[in-house]
């Protein structure tokens, strides 16, 4: 008992203030005035040289949004947001049209350096494919594997500042570019799919995003193409009080495959920052999309002051037969997380997967999970959720698994495990299950455990510090999910897990 008691003590003094990534890059930004109005939306649209239909689409969403209410069902608690007190557009001042990372503002690169983000594209730009694989900590089998190549579309604030590997992707016929560029270069493709997975009317934050989204990524993988590299985007929120409204759209045409990685960090700010992204995935017949996220935005200080509000709508549509979408997320940051990456299993035989690690510490509040909507015949889904709560945080898994009348032989397996560190945090599991088809088989397992004193002492007796011991035990707890991440991210995610639990023990 005593070790737990002590852990609690230490968690109480948790030093989230030491947030390693809390610094501000000094880049003059060009921003729209505070507040939201039709004029601001016209400003954003004009800045982006968008087609007329896009502006109309935004305005319609805006008018809709004005009639909507913020959702209140999640187990999160925060003061009311004054939406007129936010900036809705800002961009770093830059030379237009950058060709390579060399042209990126060195301060931005320096920022990434501090983040320790493996911006391996420096090597990669030089055409080096490193094979000195770092061990993911699993076992030796993990090392010695050549590193996958990663194409990076770095999003700094609201504007994409660099895109690499474009040529090789173009050769394969893959389109990977900022969505603002896609709107100009491939308007028909965007128009065909935008809003078809997350309609502009979907929910308060998604509708807001539809009105004001500034940028994000667009990916189109043509029929039969296996995307030759992992696609990766790093989002940063940098300008004080800048709402960040990313919009990402990924389309995998028939028989294609793409793996997309998204990593995020943000500098420290006193004001709460709102982030309301929308991600739409479309998988056509026999196509597969793997979408991975590592999120470590500023969680706020020890008293729960500051930190990011992360209200995200992510949804994948398995539109074609035999299509597959899998979401993998490692969520360690943000003051409040409201996020339910979901799959609509429309195509016959389609499959959805959700693998999640959600860590909360300090006073973080996490309400996250997934929805697996089985519409087609013989569809299957799998949910593995690992929640870790420390400090005084609250961590809720909220999941819906539903089978439509026509979804005969729908199958789901859900496993929700919670790990508690200390006595002042909370873990909650809220599963909703609806089966309107009698042939559906839904399995649900849930466990809640604590790091035991015995385990901790065992590790300490072998010479590990308390912090190392907790990190090791937690990494073991989340191993099934870590294994789902591409190698590139598994190592980084593992480090991130240790960092985010720093201060949760001595």
């Amino acid at each position: 008992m005593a070790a737990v008691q002590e852990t609690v003590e230490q968690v109480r003094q948790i030093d989230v203030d030491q947030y390693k990534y809390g610094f501000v890059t000094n880049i003059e930004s060009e921003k729209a005035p505070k507040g939201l109005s039709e004029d601001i939306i016209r400003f954003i649209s004009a800045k982006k040289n968008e087609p007329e239909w896009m502006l109309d689409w935004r305005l319609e969403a805006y008018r809709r949004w004005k009639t909507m209410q913020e959702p209140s069902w999640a187990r999160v608690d925060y003061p009311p947001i004054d939406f007129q007190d936010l900036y809705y557009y800002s961009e770093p001042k830059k030379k237009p049209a950058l060709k390579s990372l060399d042209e990126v503002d060195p301060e931005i690169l320096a920022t990434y350096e501090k983040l320790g983000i493996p911006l391996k594209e420096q090597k990669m730009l030089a055409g080096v494919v490193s094979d000195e694989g770092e061990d993911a900590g699993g076992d030796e089998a993990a090392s010695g594997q050549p590193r996958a190549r990663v194409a990076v579309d770095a999003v700094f604030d609201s504007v994409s500042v660099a895109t690499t590997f474009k040529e090789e992707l173009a050769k394969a016929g893959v389109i990977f570019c900022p969505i603002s560029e896609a709107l100009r270069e491939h308007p028909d493709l965007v128009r065909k799919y935008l809003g078809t997975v997350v309609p502009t009317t979907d929910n308060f934050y998604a509708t807001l995003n539809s009105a004001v989204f500034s940028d994000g990524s667009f990916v189109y993988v043509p029929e039969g193409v296996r995307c030759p590299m992992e696609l990766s985007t790093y989002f940063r929120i940098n300008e004080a009080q800048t709402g960040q409204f990313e919009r990402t759209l990924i389309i995998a045409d028939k028989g294609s495959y793409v793996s997309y990685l998204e990593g995020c960090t943000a500098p420290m700010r006193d004001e709460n920052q709102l982030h309301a992204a929308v991600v739409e995935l479309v998988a056509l017949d026999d196509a597969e999309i793997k979408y991975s996220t590592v999120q470590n935005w500023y969680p706020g200080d020890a008293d729960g002051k500051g930190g990011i509000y992360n209200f995200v709508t992510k949804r994948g549509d398995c539109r074609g037969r035999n299509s597959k979408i899998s979401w993998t997320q490692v969520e360690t940051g943000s003051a409040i997380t409201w996020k339910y990456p979901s799959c609509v299993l429309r195509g016959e035989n389609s499959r959805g997967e959700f693998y999640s690690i959600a860590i909360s510490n300090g006073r973080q509040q996490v309400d996250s999970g997934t929805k697996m909507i089985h519409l087609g015949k013989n569809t299957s889904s799998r949910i593995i959720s690992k929640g870790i709560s420390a400090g005084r945080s609250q961590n809720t898994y909220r999941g819906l698994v539903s089978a439509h009348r026509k979804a005969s032989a729908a199958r789901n397996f859900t496993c929700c495990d919670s790990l508690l560190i200390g006595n002042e945090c909370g873990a909650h599991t809220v599963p909703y299950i609806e089966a309107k088809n009698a042939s559906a088989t839904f399995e649900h397992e849930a466990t809640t455990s604590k790091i035991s004193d015995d385990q901790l002492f065992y590790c300490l007796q072998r010479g590990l510090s308390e912090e190392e011991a907790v990190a090791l035990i937690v990494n073991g707890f989340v191993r099934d999910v870590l294994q789902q991440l591409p190698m590139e991210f598994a190592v980084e995610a593992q480090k991130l897990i240790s960092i985010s639990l720093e201060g949760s023990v001595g």
Partner: protein
Amino acid sequence: MTPLLEVKNLHAEIDGKKILNGLDLVVNKGEVHAIMGPNGAGKSTLSYVLAGRDGYEVTEGDVLLNGESMLEMEPSERACKGVFLAFQYPMEIPGVATMTFLRAALNAQRKTRGEPELSSPDAIRKVKDVAGQLGINMDMLKRPVNVGFSGGEKKRAETMQMALLEPKLCLLDETDSGLDIDALKVVSEGVNRLRSPERGFVVITHYQRLLDHIVPDIVHVMSAGKIVRTGGKELAHELEASGYAQYQQEAA
């Protein structure tokens, strides 16, 4: 010569309950001491107090390792100074491969001692060497720490950890419990290989049979939180014949 371990008039309690009552013990380098005694005598408690487990309060006395008091040291610090406890019930750590755990422990100790950490390939090689010497299946290294291990496998894994970390003072708590005679032989052999003029052992056991395999230099009888009798290895045989009843009475 400074003893390796010197326990002086040790009194300790847990949750307000007094368990150790003025225990004295001196272990020199190269010696193997056996501590025998009835259940509840405080043998496990002694091993925990020596290893520095949280929750045990030392109210009187001192514990010196090579002349230096350990009482203020954290458990990991003691481990890095060479104290190793082979647990009676080794803990399971789900999801953490034994290899990963051993490498982490090895490097944590090296780091604390100011030695260079081993690279992944070097550490892996070292673990495999040690495992090989003990006839441990490489498959076991891939399995999560102690998860699903049989009683014998757990104790073998403990012995392997001990061999790998090369401690100065080895504390073995009821290493024989739950072992059949074949497993007992294997584990004892592993321990015997580690015997050296530089290393000391405290072997805690309820039964004499372990001491047929790990032959001690000195045998102590512990009862009600202190050493009540000390002798040579023949004392173990005597106890086997007479039982602990007389000591329980003495203590009462």
